[in-house]
């Protein structure tokens, strides 16, 4: 066992519909793993299950050899499993800086009673992450006032600020232009170099195959291919289920 995230045989059901069927993904520290599949393949449901947002019908989640399967989502997050959302889902009444620090502040027992009498300045600094993502100038802005691409970066920054072990990114490049996507790819590779494991759910397959070490492809909740990026890219099942359509579009 070498640490990192090990999600095995994850199964998610909504009523009688099985959205994710025994999908296993391993994200080692410092690695970037891609999770691809057509719309409705179960990618977001997989992330929801691993982060504890959606109850699992089966499977286990291990983080650094600790079984977190039965932990509530906020404990998993504190243990080092962080994520971004497709819709960003920023905290609109907090500034960009506050959005970040609220994600890594811890409270003591009955700390809120002390907060009533003497609010402490935050012990957490978000400066380093803000600088790394290039958001330093916007630290005091309210998210509502920012363009979509910047909001997305704030979402990524919020997932990174607490120095997570592994980050699950749900379509971080959606809505970014090609320059911003390039920039995002660079940020993610730099991040992996610091030892963080990344799971990248993304429609932009160029980005996925450019920056991922390994790729898992799913369709209708089932794993159809997994392995090193170049192998998955040439897998027939993947081309049929997913890339096939993309290539037809590309050649037309």
């Amino acid at each position, binding site marked *: 066992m070498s640490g990192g995230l090990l999600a095995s045989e994850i199964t998610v059901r*909504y009523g009688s519909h099985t959205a994710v069927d025994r999908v296993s993904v391993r994200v080692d520290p410092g690695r970037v793993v891609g999770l691809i599949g057509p719309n409705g393949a179960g990618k977001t*449901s997989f992330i*929801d299950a691993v*982060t*504890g*947002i*959606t*109850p699992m019908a089966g499977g286990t989640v291990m983080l650094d050899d600790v079984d977190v399967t039965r932990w*509530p*989502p*906020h404990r998993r*997050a*504190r243990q080092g499993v*962080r*994520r971004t*959302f497709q819709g960003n*889902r*920023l*905290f*609109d*009444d*907090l500034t960009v800086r*506050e959005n970040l*620090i*609220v*994600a*890594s*502040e811890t*409270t003591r027992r009955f*700390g*809120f009673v002390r*907060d*009533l*009498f*003497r*609010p*402490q300045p*935050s012990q957490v600094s978000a400066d380093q992450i803000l600088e790394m993502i290039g958001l330093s100038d916007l630290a005091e802005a309210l998210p509502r006032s920012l363009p979509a691409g910047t909001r997305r970066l704030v979402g990524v920054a*919020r997932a990174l600020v*607490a120095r997570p072990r592994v980050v699950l990114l749900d379509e971080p490049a959606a809505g970014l232009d090609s320059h911003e996507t390039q920039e995002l790819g660079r940020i993610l590779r730099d991040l992996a170099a610091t030892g963080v494991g990344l799971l990248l759910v993304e429609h932009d397959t160029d980005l996925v195959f450019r920056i991922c070490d390994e790729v898992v492809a799913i369709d209708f909740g089932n794993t159809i291919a997994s392995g090193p990026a170049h192998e998955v890219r040439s897998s027939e099942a993947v081309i049929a289920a997913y890339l096939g359509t993309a290539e037809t579009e590309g050649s037309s």
Partner: protein
Amino acid sequence: MNQFLVYVILGLGPGAVHALLGLGLVTVYRGSGVLNFGHASIAMYVAFVFRWFRQEVGWPTPVAFVLALVAAALLGLLVHLLVMHPLRHAPVLARVTASLGLLLTLASLAYWQFGGGTFTVNPFTPTRPVEILGVRVGWDRILLLVVALVLTAIVWVVYQRTLFGLATRAAAESEKGAAVTGFSQARLAAINWMIGSVLAGIGGILISPIARLNALQMSLFIAPALAAALLGRFERLWLVFGGGMLLGVGESLISKYLNDVVGLTATLPFLLIVGVLVFRGSSLPQRGELVYSDLPIAPRVSRLGVKLAVFSVVSLLLLFFLPSSYAAAYTIAMIGGVIILSLVVIVGWVGQISLCQVGFAGIGAYATIRIAHHLGVVFPISIVLGALVAVPVGVLVGLPALRVRGVNLAVVTLGAAIALERMVFNNPSVTRGDQGSTVPTGAGMFGIDLDGRTEPARYGVVVVVALCLCVLLVANLRRSVTGRQMLAVRADETAAAAAGISVSKVKLQAFALSAFLAGLAGGLMAYRAGRVSEQGFVAFQSITFFALAYIGGIATIAGALIGTFLAPGAPAALWLKNAIGSVQVSQTLSGVGLVMTVVTQPDGLANMVRNEREKRRLKKARAAMTQDGTS
């Protein structure tokens, strides 16, 4: 066994009314997306109209019935046109507040027009009994049951089988959905408001001979009706029907077998429904679950010193320069301000709708009195200790909030408020005697007499100080880790959990603090008058305070201070009352004013000031830019 059956059958009548009211609630909700807390008040008002036509004017029953239902339809149409249509794009809470305002308006209007007190309605259906299964049952109850069944069936068929029904169901999903079927959303909403109001009217008229007519009591029929509608998820009409019947029968059985537990009749069935909601809910909103998070903006605390200074100076001037009756009344309004502040925390910052604040105040008041008697603790420590007693109650009421959200939670907390009113404040063993309801000695500190009865202005100063201290606590919170976590939870529970925040903990902390503040208000009330009575803590008043908090500016501290000047007892309200010379008229006008304020300022008055300032700033910036361009 026979007895058991008798009580089951006795419960069918009220059960049918719960079902009918629930049915109307669902109709209005499906057609216009409004959870109408004023629905039972419409039923009450129409029943009064019916009684008036029939017993005062003396027209035949069928004529009175038809006219009353026409009035119901008109009332529904008016509410739609004047209130809900203009608010269709406003935050959900604005519409909830407007419907609460409707409740208050209709209740005081009925008082004004038809008089307070309880009225009997002569039976208009044969009451002679028939024998079913060896039990003698009144015809009126059977009729109620049949009417509820038939109406549910009709509404069900209409919604399932007609284009209008299809359009309404589509509209409930999205505005465009209705447009596809060729109906305009506005017309659909209007028709559904009329249908819903007529259904309410039928229920109100049919129950009036059995339950008798009282403006306030009947308005609170909303709680079981909401419970029935919730059980059917505002969608499944037969579940709503079943829920209503279950509540009616449950109430009846409890009144027979558990009669010695005070207030259980009105409480237990409701608690069961809460249980169902909690069981059905999940600790985080699931995919596809509708979550309303469009609360007005919660700005940072700014210029707090200025605000508090202005408020204090104005308050002191009012206390010492107005006639002493005004001073005493204004003190009541400021205590109301503390309750409104407690709502800023729980609703404004954490997004949890609580209609139970006056219940917490009641706990604080009675606990303060007990503590003063039994522990010999003096003012103001007794108040603080009393408020601490309200904290566990607040946490208990907050527990369902871990799995129930949005307007559903409003229903749950309203139920809790009713439970507290009936089981605690109406319970003689809690409140009886001097030790239960009278403070041992009046307020005083450092040898200064601050007794609210003999020194109203001095006691008013105490309340000014208390309110300012509470504001400081709440402002501190907004600046702290806990405050940030609260706003994160309010914005998005799922994202907050994924950011490592314990959503449950934050919600319970907010309920604890909110109950503490409301409990303080209760203790302040106790020392102001020297004694308290159960009339001071009726569930109804929580609704008033919620509405005031919302129109003041639910997510702002300034809003709480503004709300103080609108609260019952504030100089303007008292002046209005004196000028008109009638409590009912001034209350009706306040209700109308409240609804109109929501319609014109759906984000609250505090944000109105803010929006204006923002507009001016933008204008200036734009002007500066054009100047740059030309130079």
